[in-house]
Every structure is written in C-alpha cells, then in structure tokens.
C-alpha cells in the first residue's frame, strides 16, 4: 500500500481548525472565595489569574482576601459580611467583560474591583458605568482610565503610567543620558508608558527608538539586536510579568547591562523574585514598598502578608488590600451602597494610615479619581540581608508631584443624571 492510499484520520483541516481553536480559546473556571452571612455585601474581583500576569494578579487576590477578612472581623460593611467573588479574566478583554456582566447581572455584586490588564480594566469600566456599579481599578496603569477615558464610577489605587514615568525619568536622564530605546509591550499599557516617557524625553531634548513586542513573547533576541544597533544610553524595559523576566534575563545574558543602563517604570517584587541575581539590576519605580521604617502599620501589614505568602508584602498585595478597604471605608462612612452617592463621597477622600501604609494621607483626587499615592523611585539589586530586600528606595516622590495638574489628564467626569 502506497502512502497515497493510506487512510489518515488526522487531516490538515483538523489540525488547522484545532490550531485556531487553541489560539482563540481562553478557558478557565470561575471560583468563589468565602461566603459568609445571610445577606452579604458582594464584591466582584476580576483579575488575570492565568496568563503572563498570573503572579501579580494572585498577589492582588491575597491582599483583597486579607482585607475582606479584616473588614468582616470589624463588623463588615453596614453590619453585613463581605463576600469576595473572584473571577479570572484570563488576560483577555472579551472574557473580562463577560465576567463583569456575569458578576453584576447573575451574582448581583455591589462593587467591582479589577483588572491588572489596563485594556481589560477599561473595557470593564464601560460595563460598570453603564450598570451604575462603583468600580475600583486596583492595578491597571494606563493613563486613560483616570484620564480621557475617566468615568464617574471608576477610582484607581495604582499609579498612572505618567506618575511612574515622571518619578523615574529625570533620574534616568541625569544619571545615564537622553538617548533611549523602548522595549514596549504592544497594548494599551505599553503604549501609554512609552508616550509618557517620550513626552518627558522630548521636552528635555532627548531622542528615542522603540520595538513594540507582542504580549507573551518568549524570545527577545531579535528585539535586543535592534536595540543594540541603535546604541542607546538607556534601555527602557516596559514589559510586564513573565515577559519582563524573560527579556531582562536575555538582556543580561547578552552582556548588554555592561553597555547601557536599564530601567523603566515598574520592576515589581514578584518579577524581581523570578530572575536570577545577575538580572536584578536597573532603575525603576515601586508603587508601594514593604520596608518603610517609621511609617505606621506597614510592618504589621508586611507581617500579615508574610504569614500568608511566606514572602514580604508586595505592591500588588497592597493594591488588592487598599481597593477592598476603600469600598468598606466609604460605604461605612456614607452608610449606603448607592454607587453615585459613594462616588461623590470618594472624590477627595483621604485613606487613613492603616490603609494608606505610606507617608502622608493620599487622597482620591476629585478631578480624575486617581489615588495620589507616593511613588518610590530607586534601584534593584541582589538581596541584601532580608531575601526580599532587593530594591533600595532612593527618592519617594509625592503622588501630587508625580501626577501633575488634574487638567493635564484630560479627564472630564460626566455624572449620571
């Protein structure tokens, strides 16, 4: 029997169809964390628990769960227990929106928190504003969320990309020079950070080139060859999560750390932990840091997180914690769950020290709903003493200074009639 007559049960069409299916399908099962009390106040928490941002998303969940437990210990929200419903957006906009609809329409949540991925957070914000649900964006950084795309019901805990860029850009320019190369993830967040940096660089008379890199890229050699060819003084690495880990590892393996500086907005503790000592380099911002001697309640929170995760508290732990605490604080203060009333009250609301966990009392700015949180600019390095002491804060920049005037954000809040 020749090969042409041989029966084959797997044919080209099957392979092509299934190949397309695997590329398209993002599937995960939802799960619910904790159900207490008979008529609980429900908070829907949407984050990419799977995919490249899984580690940081899960850190947010840990912080949020801890906050819910603490709130319940103190009597909950309006005397009702808090129930946290955690859903996986699978790092996919469609899935995130679908989960938001499910949480609001089927599970009847009173509040929404999420998403790490800015693109998903912005898409969910459209749903929550339409459904009149108060929405806290814990860790999605793109400017537009509290900028041109701001809505009356959306408040953000983490910084804008502009805040982070403002906090580190001058340090990078002064220390290393004004010729930069960007390694930018090709989606809303990456574009937003690059634009923020380029604005500052241009104003200072600097020049730049860039590579836009698809999310989930494994090998960065082609992009690093491009970067090297343009001979920059600083490589700005905007990649996030496991993408940042892989790109930094390769950057160091290629010996490029000896030829140019590396830095950017974020090199989160979760990512620093995932790289070997040699790749723990560069100048970055932390949006919260566990080692703040003399700042009240920080050590307490750090110890609580350490008990749960085994490691020091991360900025993402704090994002999740502060997001859920914000909801409880404002609802208990206003004695209502009505979203428009709470949103009005949150404008100008200052976080108390046990939730702020940083110098001063950051407030949600009324004009754009952005939390004016301190930005910790500094340098990454191998562990010094404590295994998580891998970053030294050089200059804490107050949120208001990093954010600039509210008019510059382009946010014009339209309140519902």
């Amino acid at each position, binding site marked *: *029997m020749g*090969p*042409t*007559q*041989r029966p*084959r*049960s*797997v*044919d*080209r069409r*099957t*392979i*092509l169809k*299934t*190949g397309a299916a*695997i*590329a398209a399908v993002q*599937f*995960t099962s939802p799960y619910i964390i904790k159900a207490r009390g008979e008529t609980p106040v429900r908070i829907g928490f949407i984050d990419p*628990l*799977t*995919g490249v941002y*899984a*580690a940081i998303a*899960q850190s947010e969940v840990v912080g949020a769960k801890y906050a819910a437990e603490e709130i319940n210990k103190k009597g909950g929200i309006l005397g009702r227990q808090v129930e946290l419903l955690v859903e996986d957006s699978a790092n996919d906009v469609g899935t995130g929106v679908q989960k938001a609809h499910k949480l609001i329409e089927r599970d009847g949540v009173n509040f929404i928190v999420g998403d790490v991925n800015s693109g998903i957070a912005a898409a969910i914000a459209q749903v929550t504003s339409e459904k009149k649900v108060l929405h806290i964006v814990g860790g999605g950084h793109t400017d537009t969320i509290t900028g041109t795309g701001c809505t009356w019901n959306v408040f953000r805990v983490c910084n804008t990309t502009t805040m982070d860029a403002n906090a580190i850009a001058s340090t990078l320019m002064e220390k290393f020079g004004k010729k930069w190369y960007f390694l930018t993830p090709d989606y809303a967040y990456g574009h937003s950070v690059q634009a923020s940096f380029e604005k500052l660089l241009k104003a200072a008379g600097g020049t730049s080139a860039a*590579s*836009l*890199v*698809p999310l*989930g*890229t*494994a*090998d960065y*050699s*082609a*992009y*690093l*060859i*491009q970067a*090297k*060819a343009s001979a920059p003084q600083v490589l700005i690495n905007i990649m996030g999560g*496991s993408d940042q*880990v*892989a790109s930094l*590892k*390769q950057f*160091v*393996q*290629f*010996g*490029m750390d000896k*030829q140019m500086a590396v830095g950017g907005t974020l090199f989160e503790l*979760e*990512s620093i*932990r*995932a*790289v*070997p*000592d*040699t790749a723990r380099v560069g100048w970055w911002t932390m949006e919260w840091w566990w080692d703040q001697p003399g700042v009240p309640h920080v050590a307490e929170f750090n110890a609580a997180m350490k008990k749960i995760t085994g490691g020091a508290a991360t900025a993402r732990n704090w994002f999740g914690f502060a997001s859920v605490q914000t909801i409880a604080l404002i609802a208990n203060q206003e004695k209502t769950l009505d979203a428009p009333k709470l949103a009005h009250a949150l404008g100008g609301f200052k976080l108390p020290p046990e939730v702020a966990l940083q110098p001063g009392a950051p407030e949600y700015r009324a004009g754009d709903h952005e939390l004016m949180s301190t930005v910790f600019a500094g340098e990454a390095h191998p562990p010094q003493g404590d295994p998580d002491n891998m970053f030294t804060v050089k200059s804490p920049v107050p949120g208001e200074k990093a954010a600039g005037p509210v008019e510059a954000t382009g946010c014009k809040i339209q309140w519902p009639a």
Partner: protein
Amino acid sequence: MTTLLLFNVTNGLIIGAFYVLMALGLSLILNLSNTINFAHGGFLVIGGYIAYAITPYVGFWGGLLLAPPLTAVIGLVVERLLIRPLYGRDPLYSLLLTFGLAFIIQDGTRFIFGAQGKPVTIPPFLAQPLSSELFFITGYRLFMVGMAVAAVALLFVLLRYTRLGIRIRAGTLDLETVASLGINVQMLRTLNFGVGIFLAGLSGVLAAGQLGLEPTMGDSLLLPSFIAIIVGGIGSLPGTLAGGLLIGVASGLTAVFLPAASEAVIYVLMAVVLLIRPRGLFGEEGMMT
C-alpha cells in the same frame, strides 16, 4: 544593514533550532499515534520544573540529565492511562483530552510551585556572550543549539538503525500491516510517546535557563512548534526540521524591518505555504488531505 541582516538570520536559526526540538516530539507523536498533543507545552513545563526541583541536589548538569527521562516517565504513565484508551476513537477525543490536560498541568504546576516565576541559574561560563560584537550568541544559546543538533542526530540514528526506530517508521507508514506482522503496536506507541515527551522535557530544561520558569511558559512555544510541523509537512521529520528553522529565520528577518510583525510573520508563512503547497514543504501527498 548587512550585519544586522546576518545577525538576525543567525539568531533566527538559533531560535529555529529550539522550535525543532519541540516540534520533533510533537511530530513523532502525531505521526504514529494520530494524537495532536496539545499538552506538549505542559510536558515542557513539567521538564523545567523537575529540573528546578532537583537542581539543588544534583546541580544544573544533573538536572539536565535527569529531568528529561523523568518527564518521559510521566509521559508514559499518561499515555498508558489516558491516551491509549482513545486510540480507537476519533482523534478529536485525544485532542480534547490533551487540550484539557494542558490546563491541568498548568494549574497543577501553579498549585505546587506558585504562579510566581522561579529564577533558574545557569553555569556562569555559559552565561557569557561569545564577544561584544556577537553579543547575541551566548554560550548557553550555542549549547542549546548543540543539544538540539545532538537530539536530532540521535533521533535520526534511532529511527534509521534501531529495531524500535524502524518499527516506528513502519508504523507511521502503515500501522495495520505492522500490527499484522505480530509487532506489539500498543507498546510501540507507548515508547514512541515516551521519546516525544523526552524531547519536550529536554526543551523545558533548556528553555528554563534561557527564559525563566513559570507555569505558562509552554504556551508561547507550543504554537510555533505546530506551525513548524504544518509548514514542514505532516508525517515528515526532515520537514519538521526545515519548518522549525524556516520560521525561526523568517521571524528573525522580519524583526529587522518590522519588529512588531516578527511573531505574526510565521502565521503568514504558514498561510502562504498552505496555499501554494497544501501538504507542506516536505509532506507526502495524501498525508494532509
């Protein structure tokens, strides 16, 4: 510009060699067992994590030596318990099974080792670039290419000169006749599956040193490997070899002119090959009907 082009072609070949390693395992399993193994990326992850777990006791080289066979053993168990019962059925059954298995492996590793990536350290002498001019050719990347070449060579020797290899090739061509000659086809498929998963495990250990280790690392490597098989032609191992190298180079070259498209180009290449030559570059007529 010429230097940049040359750099990217060389770089593409290096990346391609890695795709080849992964794709050969997939191809072996597909050819003999009619199983589209979507869990292949998962086995790669298992290989990486096994190496990570045993490295503190046996060192990097011990991990490299032991992790692939241990991954293969897990593969053998999976084949025996889960995949074998589905051989007689429509291939969509085993496809769905491995599709689900990929998620189970991913969540399983996340459950055991955590979602946070793990740092993998490679021997310092491998972590250096050859020279400041050829900065992208590090000792480790050369080592990866060497391992890929050695694995391909061994595989070809196995398939050409050993009894097992000859039976695997014969089975790929006509399994019914092989069975009627009294050869234990079930055992043949199991061993073949084991060899395929061995290659996945080896890819995992090597990838961990280059990219870092985290539960989703197999995802981004699986699809290019499937494309290598389709471009090269289903049923042809030399085709898989050529397909892997070709998509690596295409991706590298595109990076010179349009970096953002360097990933998309491999899909375009696949589409073009399928339009012009539906059986793939080296696929036999009738293999891809």
